């Protein structure tokens, strides 16, 4: 018994030293009008199998043709993530049989992907009250172009599977690779967690898997290198039935796609190659939009708003532009504007599940309201009421609403005296 106790307590102490190590594999669909290797259109929510080129159906004799826009998107992504762009990258075939992959292999970039060795500095709310902005750096190992598989729907009742080869999921998919180890020691055996269907489940799936692995080791077991599926109902991961044992993908170079070359600039394009036919990095660099980190810093710096607010501004599509337009059109200080944007505007949008583009109140209208408030014409509580009315009746001007609601502040002393006198006169008992 003593031995057992000693054993388990040393394991327990090991367990408490165990730390999770996580690698994320993120599949992001490229925003392009046609697919990576075929000229069929990319269309969201189309009827099944309505946008399938001969190549998508793996008809024999079809050959992949690389989509230039997709290459540009990969380079832009690599630049935004501080990666080294490989001037030469290669395509490979990854073989496995699955009904949603008609060719029996997927074209990917395993040997030499288009971008490597990047990093992402991200910030999050931490500290005791979770109101401190902390920042971390995560390594981006590589970015690779790859073919998407089709969609499969399992009909268990009829014991059949239906396949849609349109291949436009339109979402971000994440697989998590998780292992645990004691810091300083070699990495533990990892498992792959799939079927994480939304961003909010990523953390839950990973947390569960780390705890599961710790418990297994605590009980003297070993971690098996396997693929597990996340079950959102139970919040657990379960082994996937048909992916037992190690998969050998029998990688082979894709013989129908020569090496992909991207060039620094027009000067480095070799003679005999048409510059309009190549991807040039400097052109894409110039096209890069303001990156989130840079924009957040600028918001704080230029407008003196709180860092927390800069996060929200950057994370909501179009909100920064909205905010800046209000600021441009109003005398009110940006720090006041931000309050209105964060509370009144976003509050209404969230409550009614609307997107910013659907806001009935335009930036100019909000600016108008704030100007009226600045001029002292209305009180701030009155302004909030007017805002809600503007929301309901966006065609009406601010001044009109103020009049209709009779919310104008009276600052004429004579008028005020008259009103007070009237109140006193009509309520003798109280006076």
């Amino acid at each position: 018994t003593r031995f057992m106790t000693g054993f388990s307590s040393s394991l327990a102490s090991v367990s408490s030293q165990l730390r999770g190590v996580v690698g994320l594999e993120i599949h992001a669909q490229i925003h392009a009008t046609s697919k990576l290797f075929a000229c069929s259109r990319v269309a969201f929510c189309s009827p099944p199998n309505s946008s399938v080129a001969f190549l998508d159906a793996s008809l024999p004799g079809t050959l992949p043709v690389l989509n230039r826009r997709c290459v540009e998107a990969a380079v832009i992504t690599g630049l935004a993530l501080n990666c080294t762009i490989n001037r030469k990258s290669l395509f490979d075939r990854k073989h496995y049989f699955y009904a949603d992959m008609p060719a029996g292999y997927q074209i990917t970039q395993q040997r030499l992907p288009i971008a490597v060795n990047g990093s992402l500095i991200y910030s999050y709310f931490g500290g005791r009250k979770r109101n401190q902005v902390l920042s971390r750096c995560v390594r981006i190992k590589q970015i690779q172009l790859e073919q998407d598989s089709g969609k499969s729907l399992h009909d268990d009742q009829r014991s059949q599977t239906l396949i849609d080869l349109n291949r436009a999921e339109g979402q971000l998919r994440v697989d998590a690779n998780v292992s645990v180890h004691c810091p300083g020691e070699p990495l533990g055996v990892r498992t792959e967690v799939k079927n994480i269907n939304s961003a909010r489940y990523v953390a839950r799936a990973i947390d569960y898997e780390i705890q599961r692995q710790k418990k297994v080791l605590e009980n003297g077991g070993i971690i098996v290198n396997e693929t597990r599926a996340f079950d959102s109902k139970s919040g657990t991961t379960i082994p996937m039935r048909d992916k037992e044992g190690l998969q050998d993908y029998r990688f082979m170079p894709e013989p129908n796609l020569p090496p992909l070359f991207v060039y620094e600039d027009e000067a480095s394009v070799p003679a005999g190659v048409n510059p309009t036919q190549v991807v040039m990095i400097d052109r894409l660099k110039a096209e890069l939009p303001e990156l989130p980190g840079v924009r957040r810093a600028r918001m704080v710096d230029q407008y003196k708003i709180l860092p927390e607010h800069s996060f929200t501004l950057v994370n909501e599509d179009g909100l920064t532009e909205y905010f800046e337009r209000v600021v441009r059109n109003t005398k009110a200080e940006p720090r006041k504007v931000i309050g209105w944007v964060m509370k009144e505007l976003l509050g209404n949008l969230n409550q009614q599940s609307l997107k910013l583009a659907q806001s009935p109140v335009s930036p100019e209208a909000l600016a108008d309201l704030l100007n009226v408030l600045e001029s002292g014409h209305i009180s701030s509580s009155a302004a909030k009421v007017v805002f809600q009315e503007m929301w309901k009746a966006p065609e009406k001007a601010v001044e009109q609403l103020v009049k209709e609601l009779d919310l104008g502040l009276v600052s004429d002393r004579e008028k005020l005296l008259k009103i007070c006198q009237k109140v006193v006169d009509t309520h003798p008992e109280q006076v």
Partner: protein
Amino acid sequence: MLSLSIGEVSAALRKGRLSATELCRRCLNRIRKTRHLNAYITVTEDLAMKQAQEAELRLTRGKPLGPLDGIPFSVKDNFCTENIETTCASHMLRGYFPPFSATVVQKLLDQGAVLVGKTNLDEFAMGSGSTDSVFGPVRNPWSYSVSYREQSREQDPDSDWVIAGGSSGGSAAAVASLSSFMALGSDTGGSTRNPGSLCGLVALKPTYGLLSRHGLIPLVNSMDVPGIMTRTVHDAATVLDVLQGRDEKDSTTVESAYSPSSLPEEFDVRDICVGVPKEYHAPGMSAETLAQWGRVVALFERAGARVKEVSLPHTQHSIVCYHVLCCCEVASNMARFDGLQYGHRSKVDSSTEALYATTRHEGFNSVVRSRILAGNYFLLKQNYDRYFVKAQQIRRLITEDFRRVFQSGVDVLLTPTTLSDAARYSDFIQEDNRTRSAQEDIFTQPVNVAGLPAVTVPTALSSRGLPISLQLIGQSFQDMKLLTVANWMEQQLDFPIIRFHDDTDQERECKLGS
């Protein structure tokens, strides 16, 4: 009439001495008469007559689309043809009607050529005899020729007929039996040149990347090319000019820097240096083939060309290198045949796995299956470096051998095409497909490994009355130059036109002047 060259018959069509519909009808009749050769899987009679009528209209108006307008041709059944069954001679694709045509097929159709049918082949182009097809083997038309029958001791051609070679045997038989003026084959390890040689035709394997592979159902993507079969070198050049060129749909095609569209008017063979690779003295080569090789070398020498012995030291490793890479690609390319989207689907549906396994077992013959298994083995992670990478390295060395020889001033290489003349079917099938392929591909597959152009030209009839041919190998993208030398060679040799006992005098004497 049917034994005329494309050049001659095209001139006749344009001059109005012959109508396109009459020509087409004759070819279709010929196909019917030569059914015993089993050269065709599908005969497109109605379509051909329709195309011939359209050609006739153009020709009578004096507006032909080009030198191929109205010319009947056939296509190996591993090229996709829109709405025409394309089977690859396999159960796997019985009843498969592609919704598009291969680029090279479309180019011929766009020139007004008349498609008479899809020809027989070894299943999925794997083989060197055209004996492994689900539709049965192809018979070499020379089995029925006067020259062979006179030499043969058998009375009954059914017992001693000879193979057409493979894997494009049907295409070769079609052109050699005079039911087509030209045919498309495919060439991965010699599959156009081998049957071309055994059937006494001119068969060209173009440089890899010169002709589009879009629509050619692949065997080995990094070695496959569409092949051209005709009865004269001049005809091959005409077809090459129509077919060459970059295709957007095939990323491995190249816009070659300068590509002449025809053979030059002037050619002096004294400007040429012919290399004779010593490693090509293979055991198993027949004495007659060796004699022809010597004969043609002497021809070049006497005419003033420089001839020298050269060395391609890695030749001996080529067949194994080819075999490894071929199996790897086959395993990969055949993965798409699962019965789900098209083709044969097994009735077993207890699970997806069972469906796949049964479909593939039923659909593929043992040759295809064994190559898939070998390829999967070579591609396993633990084997990849030892087999696939090693083979690619050997491939580089073989390519370098050729490059070095050409850089030393050699313009073309002269070698045999096959070990001997055509074997009897009954002898050929004594060994399995793998053994035969390894033996027969010996002179042809190094060319595919290196991606070079090569052409086979018939030189003489053997003592058995069957064609013997030799191969010329050229430099990358110098296909027209290669054909120029081949053209000169052909003119020195005067290889006979095939004759059959049942040829009528009218057919034989119908030589329409140009």
